[in-house]
């Protein structure tokens, strides 16, 4: 009874701290559900960065010029770095990277479903950088104010790099649109395939979002899925038009009254199909990660064995 009382007291104190926009730090008391919710969200975010290395990394070996090759390498390397910050942020919540990777491999933990689509042409590298990174920025800028300190600070760093990624993607699209007809077709085709999955990145509509209400109350999430999606559409449509691309949505129209673009209905069946494992590349993406991890086991073991020997040496000498 007394324990229950103190728990209630803790939760109230926690909520008032969050309400006052104070950051929650790793050693602070936090509700267990807050901790679990954050682990879920941060690890999903980390896994997305890491699985995202695959569709883009695919094109490092085939990039059309040396400059594009070098830029793409740097970009994909940044994504790996983001994965690293985010795993580190998740680890402050009392879970190890091994456990997080295990959850990814068993399917208990998800990654952004958009990376289950293939990157078929060079223009896809443009579309991913432009749209997927734009969507990520819109989401992550709002997360710079998330209530959990380590997550918020990771977002500040990540956002800076993402804006370089977004520019490189858009630059690829712009270059294609200024090129030959086959290049413009390639760019348009990539937009056609990546547009709707990009909109789906923001998750279900607010009314249907499973974790939204509590996450907003705890200020883990700062803006709703639909708000963020609208912001993304408003800016991406203008960017598409500026370089002569046509957004593949017949219902897209500027709404003077709202001051936003209205857009067509998202195909949530498609979203569910891909999230639940039947997108074009789900199996390959996961299998690739599992096999790299398994093939690397002997290296990790060697490193641990070597370090253990180093630690043992001074004792032996003494």
């Amino acid at each position, binding site marked *: 009874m007394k324990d229950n009382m103190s728990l209630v007291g803790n939760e109230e104190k926690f909520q008032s701290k969050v309400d006052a926009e104070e950051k929650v730090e790793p050693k602070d008391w936090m509700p267990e559900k807050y901790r679990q919710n954050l682990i879920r969200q941060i690890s999903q975010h980390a896994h997305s960065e*890491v699985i995202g*290395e*695959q569709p883009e*990394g695919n094109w*490092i*070996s*085939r*990039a*059309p*010029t*040396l*400059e*594009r*090759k*070098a830029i793409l*390498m*740097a970009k*994909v*390397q940044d994504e*790996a*770095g983001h*994965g*690293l910050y985010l*795993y580190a942020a998740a680890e402050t919540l009392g879970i190890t990277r091994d456990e997080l990777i295990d959850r990814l491999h068993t399917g208990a933990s998800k990654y952004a479903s958009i990376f289950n689509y293939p990157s078929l042409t*060079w223009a896809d590298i443009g579309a991913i950088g432009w749209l997927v990174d734009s969507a990520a920025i819109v989401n992550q800028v709002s997360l710079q104010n998330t209530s959990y300190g380590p997550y918020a600070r990771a977002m500040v760093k990540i956002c800076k790099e993402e804006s370089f990624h977004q520019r490189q993607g858009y630059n*690829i699209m712009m*270059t*294609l649109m*200024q*090129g*030959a007809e*086959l*290049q413009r077709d390639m760019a348009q085709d990539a937009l056609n395939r990546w547009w709707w999955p990009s909109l789906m990145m923001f998750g279900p509509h607010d009314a249907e979002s499973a974790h939204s209400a509590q996450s907003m109350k705890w200020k883990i999430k700062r803006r709703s899925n639909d708000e963020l999606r609208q912001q993304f559409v408003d800016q991406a449509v203008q960017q598409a038009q500026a370089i002569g691309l046509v957004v593949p949505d017949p219902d897209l129209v500027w709404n003077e009254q709202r001051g936003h673009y209205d857009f067509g209905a998202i195909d949530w069946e498609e979203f569910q199909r891909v999230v639940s494992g039947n997108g074009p590349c789900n199996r390959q993406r996961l299998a*690739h*990660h599992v096999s*790299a*991890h398994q*093939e*690397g*086991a*002997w*290296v*990790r*073991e*060697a*490193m641990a*064995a*070597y370090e253990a*020997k180093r630690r043992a040496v001074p004792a032996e000498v003494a």
Partner: protein
Amino acid sequence: MKLHDPLTRYVVRLGDDALIMGHRLSEWMSRAPFLEEDIALSNVALDFVGRARLFYQYAADLMGGEVTENTFAYQRDVRDFTNLLLCELPRGDFAFTLCRQFLYDAYSLPFTQALCKSADSQLAAIAAKAEKESRYHLRRSRDWMLRLGDGTAESHERCQNALDQLWIYTDEMFECDALLDGLIATGVAVNTASLRSEWLDTVTETLHAATLVIPEAQGGVTGGREGIHTDDLGFLLAEMQFMQRAYPGLQW
């Protein structure tokens, strides 16, 4: 694409080593044993691709006309590539990649140091940047030799196997030919034969510390400088050059 000017041929040769090495390293992206190595391997890969670009840009300046750095990378076939065979071998497992890297870095550091003194100021400038990178690369690959050689029985065996396979490709690094002889005489090129003893000292010291043994000499395989490659290079080029071959003459 036939190159005649000796300096251009030399510069392109150095660019080829760097590009092919960088390309092979970049194949590790998303496949490394852990995330930090995805980042580290791609860092080294980027250094090599960056180095290749500097050499090719210089070669393009020397040739003039329509030639750019991309001409060298994307519009030459396997017989025109003059990289060391060591650089083009498929990446193999992590031990193979790191052993290759160590053997090359142990050569690359004294090479770039010597190239800093080239009579050609442009080459000396490129070398000054590359030397700093090579110093870090060698420290890193040497550390990995220690960890893998003196880690577990499995890592030791994999590492020793990799060394045994790679050893016959190391002679080529120190080979001199008519092109080099001419450029050495004018102080432009590095006399690679003179780097062998320093290289061997580094390798011997490291392998000893890593509990690995120097493979028995088996004679060297060469040919890269003459465009006689392993079968693997053609496949690497087919992949790397796909865009420029499928859609020639466009801006990307």
